[in-house]
C-alpha cells in the first residue's frame, strides 16, 4: 500500500502574464539547457536527441529555404532525403514549459479555434495563426492519427494561405496494397517537395537516409532485447522524451544512429552489471499512449512507492522491421517502398489508422515480450481512434496474458485537463492491486 504524503508533484502558477510572443526556439533552448545543467554529467548524453532537434530548428534561421513543416506522424525521412529540415510545429508544445503551453492553449481558444484541440495541437495554434512561426517552403500533412489533427490542417492552411499543402492519405490495410498505396503517394510527395523547394531529390542521399533509418531501427530492437531483462537496465520513463523526439523527428539522421549506439553501449553495460534503473524494480508495466509530459514525477512516484517500472512505452517502440535490402544500391522504387512501409508503421500513425486490432496486438506483443505485470492505457482525451480499442485491449490482455490494464484519461501536456494527482488517484489502486497479486509490500 502506498503513501505519497512526502511526494510533491509540480505546482503551477497560471496567474502569471507570460510573454507568449517570444521566440519559441529560444525558449526551448533555454529551458532544456537549464534542465540539462541540473542533471549529472554522465547522463546528459541521454538528452542529445532533444538538443539535436532544437539545433536543427535553430539552424533554420540561417537556412529558411530548408524549412518543411511536417505532421508528427509523417515519416521524417522524406524531408531529410530532400536535404531539408523537418519542422514539426506541434513538437514545440511537447518540449515547452507547462505555464507557456497553457497560456498558448488559452490564447488559441480565444481565437475561435475548436476547443476540442488537445494541448499538443492547441498549444501552437495561436503562434501559427498570428504569424509567430516561420513560413515553410512546403507543408506535409496527413489524415492520421486523429480527427483533431485532420482538423488542424485547416489551421495550417489558414496560417499559410499561399503555401500549397501535401496531404497523405494513410492506407487502412497493412497488406502489400497498403504499401503500394502509400508508396505512390510518397512518389507524389517527392514531386511536391521538388516543386515547392526547388531542390532535386538526390538518390544517393535518399539511400543514405533510408539506410540510417533502418540502422536506427536495428539498434532500437537490440536495445529492447536488453531492456527485457529484470531488472530493466534502463526504464523507459527516464528516456521517454528523447526517445520520442528521436523516433518522431530524427529517423534517417546520423545523429540518431550515433545516439542509439551510445544508448546501446550503456544499456549493454548496465545489463551485464545487472544494474536496473534508479530504483529497485518490483513490478513492471507497459505504458500505452500518452504520458504526463507536464510532470514526470508520476513515474518517480510509481517507482518510489511501488517499485513499478515502465519498461516499454507503446508509442515510441519500433513497430516494424525495415526491409532487408542493400540500401547502398537500392533503386528509387525499392526506397519508396521502404519509406512507405516505414511511414505506415510510424508511431501513432500506425495505431491511428486501420483496424483497431493493430493497437490491441501491439499492446499484447509489448506486454508479452517485456513480461509486464500490467498495462496502463493513458488515453489522450482527444485520441478517439485509440479509445475504440481500450476495452478490447483490456479484455484481450486478461484473456491471453492474465494481466490487468488500467484505463484512464490524460492530456499529455495540459495538467488542467487531468493533473498528476488525479492520475495518481487512478494509478494507486491499480498498482496496489498488482502489488497484492504479486505478494509485494510497497
Amino acid at each position: 500500500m502506498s503513501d505519497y504524503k512526502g511526494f510533491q508533484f509540480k505546482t503551477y502558477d497560471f496567474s502569471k502574464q507570460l510573454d507568449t510572443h517570444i521566440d519559441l526556439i529560444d525558449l526551448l533552448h533555454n529551458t532544456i539547457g537549464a534542465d540539462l545543467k541540473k542533471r549529472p554529467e554522465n547522463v546528459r548524453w541521454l538528452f542529445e536527441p532533444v538538443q539535436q532537434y532544437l539545433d536543427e530548428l535553430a539552424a533554420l534561421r540561417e537556412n529558411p529555404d530548408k524549412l518543411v513543416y511536417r505532421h508528427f506522424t509523417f515519416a521524417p525521412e522524406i524531408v531529410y532525403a530532400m536535404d531539408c529540415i523537418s519542422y514539426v510545429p506541434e513538437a514545440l508544445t511537447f518540449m515547452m514549459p507547462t505555464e507557456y503551453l497553457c497560456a498558448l492553449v488559452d490564447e488559441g481558444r480565444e481565437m475561435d479555434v475548436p476547443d476540442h484541440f488537445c494541448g499538443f495541437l492547441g498549444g501552437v495554434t495561436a503562434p501559427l495563426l498570428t504569424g509567430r512561426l516561420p513560413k515553410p517552403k512546403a507543408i506535409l500533412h496527413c489524415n492520421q492519427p486523429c480527427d483533431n489533427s485532420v482538423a488542424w490542417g485547416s489551421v495550417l492552411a489558414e496560417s499559410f494561405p499561399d503555401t500549397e499543402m501535401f496531404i497523405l492519405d494513410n492506407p487502412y490495410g497493412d497488406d502489400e496494397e497498403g504499401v503500394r498505396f502509400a508508396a505512390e503517394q510518397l512518389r507524389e510527395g517527392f514531386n511536391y517537395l521538388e516543386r515547392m523547394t526547388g531542390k532535386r531529390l538526390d538518390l544517393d542521399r535518399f539511400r543514405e537516409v533510408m539506410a540510417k533509418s533502418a540502422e536506427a531501427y536495428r539498434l532500437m530492437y537490440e536495445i529492447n532485447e536488453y531492456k527485457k531483462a529484470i531488472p530493466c537496465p534502463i526504464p523507459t520513463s527516464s528516456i521517454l522524451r528523447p526517445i520520442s523526439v528521436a523516433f518522431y523527428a530524427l529517423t534517417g539522421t546520423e545523429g540518431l544512429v550515433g545516439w542509439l549506439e551510445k544508448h546501446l553501449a550503456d544499456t549493454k553495460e548496465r545489463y551485464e552489471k545487472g544494474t536496473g534503473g534508479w530504483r529497485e524494480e518490483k513490478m513492471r508495466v507497459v505504458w500505452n499512449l500518452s504520458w504526463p509530459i507536464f510532470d514526470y514525477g508520476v513515474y518517480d512516484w510509481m517507482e518510489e512507492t511501488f517499485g513499478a517500472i515502465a519498461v516499454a512505452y507503446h508509442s515510441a517502440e519500433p513497430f516494424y522491421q525495415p526491409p532487408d535490402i542493400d540500401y547502398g544500391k537500392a533503386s528509387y522504387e525499392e526506397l519508396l517502398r521502404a519509406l512507405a512501409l516505414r511511414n505506415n508503421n510510424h508511431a501513432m500513425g500506425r495505431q491511428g489508422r486501420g483496424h483497431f486490432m493493430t493497437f490491441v496486438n501491439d499492446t499484447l506483443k509489448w506486454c508479452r515480450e517485456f513480461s509486464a505485470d500490467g498495462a496502463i492505457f493513458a488515453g489522450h482525451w482527444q485520441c478517439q481512434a485509440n479509445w475504440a480499442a481500450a476495452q478490447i485491449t483490456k479484455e484481450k490482455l486478461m484473456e491471453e496474458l492474465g494481466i490487468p490494464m488500467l484505463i484512464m484519461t490524460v492530456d499529455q501536456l495540459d495538467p488542467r485537463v487531468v493533473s498528476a494527482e488525479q492520475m495518481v488517484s487512478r494509478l494507486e489502486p491499480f498498482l496496489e492491486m498488482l502489488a497484492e497479486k504479486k505478494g509485494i509490500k510497497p
Partner: protein
Amino acid sequence: MSQPIVAGCDVGSIWAKAVIFDGKEILASAVIPSSPFPAKTAEKVLEKAANKAGVSMGDIEYVVGTGYGRVNVPNAKKTVSEIACHAKGAAWSCSDVATLIDVGGQDCKVISLASDGHGRVMDFSMNDKCAAGTGRFLEVMAGVFELPIEEFGERALKAERILGISSQCTVFAESEVVCLIAQGHEIEQIIAGICDAVAARVSVLVPRVGLREKVYMSGGVAKNIGVRQALQRRLRVTIWELTEDPLIIGALGAAVLAMDALRQQQ
C-alpha cells in the same frame, strides 16, 4: 492481554467517516460532514468515533487513512486508496461480495473482488471527471426540489413512470429538471428519472470489469433506494445489502488494513 485497537478514517468529498476496530468487531463508527480543512475534519471524526468507543486517541495503535483527503489524516501511518479499502471493508462485512458498486460523493467505482473472501481487488473501473453518476449530482438535484437527500430515494419509488433525463452533465441536467418542473410533471417522476440517470452512468462501468454475482453496493448513494432499484433494473441483478452501514465501508476497510499492518509490524 487486551486486543489492540486500530482505526480507519475515510475523508470523502461530502462525508468524513471513521471506524474504531479491534480486529473482531467494530467498536464504534462516526460520520461527520467534510469541511474545506481535511486534516481538521479527520481529527474531529476520529475523536468522535473514539469517544463513542470509549477509548482515547492514544489508545489507537494504528490509523490508516483513505478517501480523497487521506494524505491529511493526522497520525495515519499509512494511506490506502478507496478502492482497496472498500473492497476490504465490503468483504469483511459480507464475504461473498463478487462485485462492489461504490457510489460516493465525487466518483463512482465498480470493483471486482477475488472469490476468496479476503477483499482482494481483481479489477476496477472508475468514472472520469464527471459529477453525473455521483452523490454530488443527487445533492444538486435534491437542492432543486428543496428536499432532504434522505427522502429522495423513497420519493422515486412512488413514481408511476420514470421521466428520461437526457443530459449527461450535472449542470445541463439541472436545467433540464427545472424545465420538467415548469412543464408540470410530477415531482416523483422527475426524481425517478434522476435516480435512473445516476444508475445509467454507474451501470456503464460494470461491463468494463464484468458483472459477477453477488453484487453489493457501498458509499452514501447505496442508501438511496431509488438509485439502488434503478441499478437493479438496468443490471438485471439483485443488489444485496451489506451488513454494515454502506457509508462507513471505506473507513472499515481502512481499519481492517490497519489491523493487518499492525499485526505484520508486531
